[in-house]
């Protein structure tokens, strides 16, 4: 059976108790409380400040999101190509200069035709400083007749956020010209820097492609790795920590 209670405006049975509570006088503490309000009114967060916070959230934040998602096109230097011609007679001097300045990453092609040497050198952007020094050196060799220096660059279109996250989270390994052992140890080092321990790296050659395999040797973090290597080209290995 459900008992419905009728609502009454007053509570006669409990009233003496309520009256005692209502008659308790706390008003003598009001001057002290009002003094507290006076002293602290300037120290509480003012509506003006809250308004400023609201403005930041309502205006600045969407702008920031828009700005970070907006695609940005920029030119990324990849390296430089140097073309030169020189007389046959200075070939050994030029070769000596190349040996002196060239780095592992340089690609040098030289051929001789009709008493003239035609040379092309590609240097990645990392060693552009050294390439400039090499150009200065070539200028001092009397038999060098022509010099062309052109910068190789690529146009990249991506959002600012993607660019930023790429810079923060990615680990790059320059694998050009590296032996399997060097590559393996470099990858392992980068993985450890990223916090991915207990991973054994194996390099397997299959159908002209080099595959990198990771074998967990113990408990490790979840991770995702994009790594495909082609022989003979510039290789960038990317390991991402999630």
């Amino acid at each position, binding site marked *: 059976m459900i008992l419905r*209670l009728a609502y009454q405006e007053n509570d006669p*049975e409990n009233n003496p108790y309520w009256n*005692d509570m209502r008659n308790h006088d706390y008003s003598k503490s009001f001057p002290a409380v*009002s003094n507290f*309000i006076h002293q602290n009114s300037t120290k509480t967060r003012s509506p003006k400040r809250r308004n400023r916070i609201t403005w930041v959230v309502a205006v600045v934040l969407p702008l920031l999101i828009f700005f970070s998602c907006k695609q940005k096109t920029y030119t990324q230097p990849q390296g430089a190509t140097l073309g030169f011609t020189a007389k046959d007679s200075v070939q050994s001097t030029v070769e000596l200069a190349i040996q002196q300045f060239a780095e592992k990453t340089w690609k040098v092609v030289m051929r001789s035709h009709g008493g003239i040497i035609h040379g092309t050198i590609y240097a990645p952007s990392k060693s552009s400083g050294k390439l400039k020094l090499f150009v200065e050196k070539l200028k001092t060799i009397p038999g060098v007749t022509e010099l062309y220096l052109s910068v190789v660059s690529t146009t990249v279109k991506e959002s600012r956020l993607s660019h930023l996250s790429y810079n923060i989270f990615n680990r790059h390994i320059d694998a050009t010209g590296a032996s399997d052992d060097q590559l393996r140890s470099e990858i392992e080092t980068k993985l450890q820097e990223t916090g991915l321990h207990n991973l054994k790296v194996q390099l397997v050659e299959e159908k002209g492609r080099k595959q990198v395999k990771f074998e967990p040797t113990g408990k490790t973090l979840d991770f995702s790795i994009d790594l495909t290597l082609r022989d003979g080209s510039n290789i960038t290995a990317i390991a991402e920590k999630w």
Partner: protein
Amino acid sequence: MPRTTDDFIALLEPHYNSAAQYCRAIFINRKDAEDGLQDAVTTAIEHFSSLRDDSKFRSWFFTIITRTFYSFRRKQAGNNKLFMPLQEGHHSFPEVYNDDYLGEREKIMLNALDTLSKKEKTAILLFEIGGLSLEDIRKVQKEISISAVKSRLSRTRLKLRNTIIEMEKINQEQGGNYDIKTCIPGK
């Protein structure tokens, strides 16, 4: 025209005594009541500009106290820090309930209130101490209808009555030396 601290104090003064009584009854513990009153006053000053109609000050301020109490109970359940600490340089809140000697019936009522749920307690106190209308209580408690508030008040009154009878009985049996936990000084 922007309103000043003096405007706030002038509006608070006529309702201060009932607000202090409400805080004392809702928080039960005198220290919590003091902290709760301080927190409610600070919140009210911060939000004073949002009060459009001065005639609604009483229900607006009691709503703030009630929300402070709900938040206190939530934080208490989550075992978090109960009240926001005053920033450095803040003057401490006066001891409102320092010489708060309660009568026998007040002690019994506080103890009986402690047996209620938070919604029952706020509804009955907003009505009996706050003097808020049923419509105002409905708004504070976010109820759809006034009848929900009415039935809550009726149920709570009956519960209180039964608890009080029980307590009076024990009190008589113990010759008026009934030790009411809520009235232990410093609790």
